[in-house]
């Protein structure tokens, strides 16, 4: 992964109803085909994600979150967890950021978008509540993918690395 890339990770069990919401949203982001945006749709967070995370400028995690009805999509700024966070075959976003920081020297700016989930039945489709949540989450992803305003001391793009181009927002492309 080149520096400057935005890594979008959607995770959850795609056989357990609304738990698939994170993967579903990630698949939609991938379909946008944005330059500089790498997307992974996964059943769970595994420790080997630490290396690509360390190489990314920004990261967005998409996950389902069990709630009662009426809750909205939530966006949380993430920071690396404590280095005692337990990591084995699976992890939390904070644990992965901590591993990226500790093992590979840096962790990206990161956000955690949680999609309200109410039905985790085997083989069930997304509930209407989660469907609306995915749409709201995608709107949030678009906002987060929008290129930051250039700073006066902004580092120039690394020559030859296509991913250093700021990710374009589909809404902006359309305008």
């Amino acid at each position, binding site marked *: 992964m080149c520096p400057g890339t935005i890594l979008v990770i959607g995770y959850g069990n795609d056989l357990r109803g609304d738990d698939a919401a994170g993967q579903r949203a990630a698949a939609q982001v991938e379909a946008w085909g944005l330059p500089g945006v790498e997307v992974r749709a996964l059943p769970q967070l595994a*420790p080997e994600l*630490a*290396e690509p995370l360390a190489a990314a400028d920004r990261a967005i995690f998409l996950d389902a979150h069990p709630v009662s009805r009426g809750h909205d999509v939530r966006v949380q700024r993430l920071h690396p967890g404590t*280095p005692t966070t337990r*990591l084995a075959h*699976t992890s939390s976003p904070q644990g992965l950021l901590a*591993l990226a920081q500790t093992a590979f020297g840096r962790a990206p700016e990161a956000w955690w978008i949680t999609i309200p989930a109410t039905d985790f039945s085997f083989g069930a489709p997304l509930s209407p509540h989660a469907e609306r949540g995915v749409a709201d989450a995608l709107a949030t992803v678009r906002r987060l993918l929008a290129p930051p305003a250039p700073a006066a001391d902004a580092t120039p793009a690394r020559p030859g690395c296509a991913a250093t181009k700021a990710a374009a927002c589909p809404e902006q492309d359309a305008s």
Partner: protein
Amino acid sequence: MAQRIVIDPVTRIEGHAKITIYLNDDGQVTDAKFHVTEFRGFERFCEGRPLYEMPGITARVCGICPVSHLLASAKAADQILAVSIPPAAERLRRLMNLGQILQSHALSFFHLSSPDFILGFDSDPAARNIFGLVAAEPELARAGIRLRQFGQEIIAHLGGQKIHPAWAVPGGVRSPLSKGSHAQIRGRIPEARATILDTLSRFKRMLPSFEKEAHIFGNFPSLFMGLVGHDGAWEHYDGHLRFVDSAGNTIADRLEARRYREFIGEAVESHSYLKSPFYRPLGYPDGMYRVGPLARLNVCSHIGTPLADQELREFRDRANGTATSSFRYHHARLVEILAAIEKIERLLDDPELSSERLRADAGINQLEAVGVGEAPRGTLFHHYQVDEYGLIRKVNLIIATGQNNLAMNRTVAQIARHYVRGPEIPEGMLNRVEAGIRAYDPCLSCSTHAAGAMPLQVSLVAADGTVLDEVWRS
């Protein structure tokens, strides 16, 4: 008054379990039990499903070793179709299984067990994890993460995803290895080989300082079982089953998996959802046997690749022949990672790998079959019975961790006898009991076909049932 120690939950293993240690009136350890407290019931809810769904369903038994279930299931289904799968499909399945063994062993060694070796069994438990390893040995930790990533990527290149790839199917596999994937896998081999050779070298230098652990971590005579090739070579996908004893004598050979009920019995204990398979001719529990990396290195005559064979000779020299200490599972895992890397490289050179004939088609031609393979933790059996329409009538899964159940119980008792003196659980004992279990790299999700994360609980119990001490670690 006799007493009992409970360790609950056990940490840095896959699943959820607890340990109970029983003391007599003199405070001496009389027995120990490793309880697996989860239940899922895959064998029952697969009944009625179409055979063609079984590889995909049973891969969901586990998020760590789904490939092992996928392949054992597909092999059972091949037999029900009564087909020989195309050579390319067999090689591709082998490639995926080697990637699985590599990634699983790397996770076990670098993420779960090496903090004990690098930081010490008595170091602060809060720091005895991958972060502590990074702080102490950053290059080793990064290399370990990348090594596991390599194994996962092989699986993803073939199956389209790292976890639960629905790729092996009855009669073969769904898709070939693309040229791009072939090149990417080959390109990572030099780094992977350098990592494992360096790790082996470091581990062997550390071994003299763990002589005490090697002496008490499951060091006892038992049988060992594993697949071997027709020439007796190390095998992970096909071949026949062999049992050897602790003196290295072959006590049963050229056993066919489909006749497993003749030589493997399955005992059930009320204290655990984990079944206790045993070698039937010796009865229960005398027929205790071990499977997995240690057993595979004990049952094979050779591995068949130059670097791994050299390491196998050294492994046997250090163990004075057959390795009887379960502490040596760690060393065996590293030798098997090296073997996997060498065999992956050979497979990539095989022109048959690029053939486009990948699947044999047939209907239901047999009503019963047993698929067998070597999962990272040991031999895995999938036994299916179907009706004439291919609907599953009965399923029996014999999982590696279950086959090590008797040995894990004995390991816990051996360690406890060494460390427990009285009605309290000393910290050093807790660490070592956990590490003794961890040497087997048990996968409890697989072994009970159960779900959950694995914390540790230890209880110390008197003869009258009074719990004298308990320790929990989340």
